[in-house]
């Protein structure tokens, strides 16, 4: 190490401090928001996770199971699951961003925030908006696949070159079908869900003393919320396609007894009551339903309930998160 001359300390130079009063200091909210984005931009594993989830659920499951199920309420299965995959990415992004607080408060920057005079509410809002913005970015990855999965191509027995041409034509039409306003509305819904889920994560993080893996959060929180939101199966409705028309009458009667009505080649399915109850109890179901309504014009739940849950939940969540952060930053 070179012998360096130590100059006058930074504290000796005059600084005027602007002592902001009030709980919301915009510059603090902004700097904490920006920090979340910088952290995300510098962590390639998060983007990789979002991409791999999208490919697994949308492409592999969507097309793989789509072959057997063909359609849900007239939508190809890959199209049906797309809003669900967006929700899955939003859940992961928000909770990952929030759970990093456990690390942050023990060995990271949060202790610096802890002794600073910055108001807790501003720090919390920065964190929540940051987590929600990262969630919108990750949720937009499946959205990029929307024109691909909605591409409708009639199969013709022609050469490969012409098949590609057909597909590209269909892709062009699908792309043209997407309204810009819908994309903005979808981003809005993702952001609101992001705020809610980051808040949930902040609450969980405030109760966790130590941290030994994200697995418990993933298996215990994200996956139940995802599976019980009607993301990969419909609550009720017509499943199948034209290939189901040759079902014998006796089998129809038998199927009706277990809750499946078969008519004109479609299966009409209803979830068992306990599974329905769980889906109805899951707030994510309503947000997902709204997202599906925006992107696909198809809803399974009353729209008024979708709007109510989507807009009121973030407000409640912010309050909960603010108290949780207060608990963490200003212990009693």
């Amino acid at each position, binding site marked *: *190490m070179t012998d*360096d001359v*130590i*100059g*006058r*300390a*930074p*504290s*000796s*130079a*005059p*600084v*005027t*401090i*602007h*002592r*902001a009063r009030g709980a919301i*200091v915009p*510059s*603090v909210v*902004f*700097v*904490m928001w920006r*920090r979340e984005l*910088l*952290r995300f931009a*510098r*962590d390639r*594993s998060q983007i990789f996770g979002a991409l791999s989830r999208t490919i697994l659920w949308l492409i592999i499951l969507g097309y793989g199971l789509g072959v057997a199920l063909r359609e849900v309420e007239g939508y190809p299965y890959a199209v049906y699951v797309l809003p669900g995959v967006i929700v899955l990415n939003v859940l992961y992004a928000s909770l*990952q961003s929030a*759970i*990093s607080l*456990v*690390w942050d408060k*023990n*060995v*990271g*920057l*949060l*202790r*610096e*925030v*802890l*002794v*600073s*005079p*910055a108001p807790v509410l501003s720090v919390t809002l920065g964190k929540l908006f940051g987590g929600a913005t990262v969630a919108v970015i990750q949720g937009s990855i499946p959205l990029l696949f929307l024109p691909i999965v909605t591409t409708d191509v009639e199969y013709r027995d022609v050469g490969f070159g012409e098949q590609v041409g057909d597909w590209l034509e269909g892709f062009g039409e699908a792309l043209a079908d997407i309204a810009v306003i819908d994309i903005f509305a979808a981003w809005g819904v993702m952001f609101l869900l992001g705020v809610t889920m980051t808040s949930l994560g902040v609450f969980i993080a405030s109760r966790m*003393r*130590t*941290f*030994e*893996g*994200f697995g418990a959060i993933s298996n215990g929180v994200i996956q139940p919320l995802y599976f019980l939101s009607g993301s990969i199966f419909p609550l009720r409705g017509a499943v199948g396609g034209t290939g189901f028309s040759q079902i014998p009458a006796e089998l129809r009667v038998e199927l009706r007894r277990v809750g499946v009505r078969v008519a004109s080649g479609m299966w009409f399915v209803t979830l068992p009551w306990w599974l329905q109850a769980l889906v109805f109890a899951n707030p994510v179901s309503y947000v997902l339903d709204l997202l599906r309504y925006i992107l696909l014009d198809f809803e399974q739940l009353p729209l008024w309930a979708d709007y109510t849950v989507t807009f009121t939940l973030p407000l409640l969540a912010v309050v909960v998160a603010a108290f949780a952060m207060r608990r963490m930053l200003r*212990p*009693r």
Partner: protein
Amino acid sequence: MAKAEPSSEVSASTSPGSRPAIEAKNIGRRYGDVAAVDDFSFGVAPGEFFALLGPNGAGKSTLLHMLTTIIPPTSGTGSVMGFDIVKESSEVRWTLGMVFQDPAVDDRLTARENLHIHAVLYGIPRKQRSEAIDRAIEWASLTETGKRRVATFSGGMKRRLELARALMHGPRVLFLDEPTIGLDPQGRRNLWERISTLRSEGMTVFMTTHNLPEAEACDRVGIMDRGKLVEVGPPHELIEKHGGSENANLEDVFINLTGRQLRDEVATARDRLVSFGKKGGEHTR
């Protein structure tokens, strides 16, 4: 390192006339039945350099956290530059600078970005921020590496960054929690020289340490054990009084006052987290 003249104005508790920079009156903090800090009273004069010594689990960190308003006391009162640590906690926060035991920086951000966050948190106006950051970077001798991510920094570089950061908002009292722990001798010497320059500029410094030669260079030393202040005074006086032999040092005083018994502590939540991280913990940083 020259030993400073002992300051005689401030006694163990308070002294009439001069207002202490840091003061605690019968301060205590209980966790259930356990008193981490018990009826603790002391004062630090403006410009004084005070070291708090004590075995592991003596309550040093709890005391430090109460004085820096991170946790409230369960009994007694305390003040920093005359501001009450409970009633005027935000005034206290603006008045003090703090360096934690291990780095409280964001590893994924650059040195400048970390300092920028500090500047915003402490309300340094936008126009002055980049100048304040430049000054801090220069003082920390990180001009070459200011735009590199802190993850690539050595322990010494992080500590210099944190010390410079703690000074950005012009604090009048500096709290250092074992500032030289984990540094190599060069890093330790360099950091110590920086702290000494602050002292010559009139900064009040309160530090906890296990490094006894460093404590010997302080104006006054307090020895804490089991939540209580066992002894306080200028190092040479303590050595005369409790050293026991002709060429005794502060270590002898420390052992004589706190005993030879080992103070084993169970791993804290933080220790467990750090070891998880070292093993390559996922999704954490």
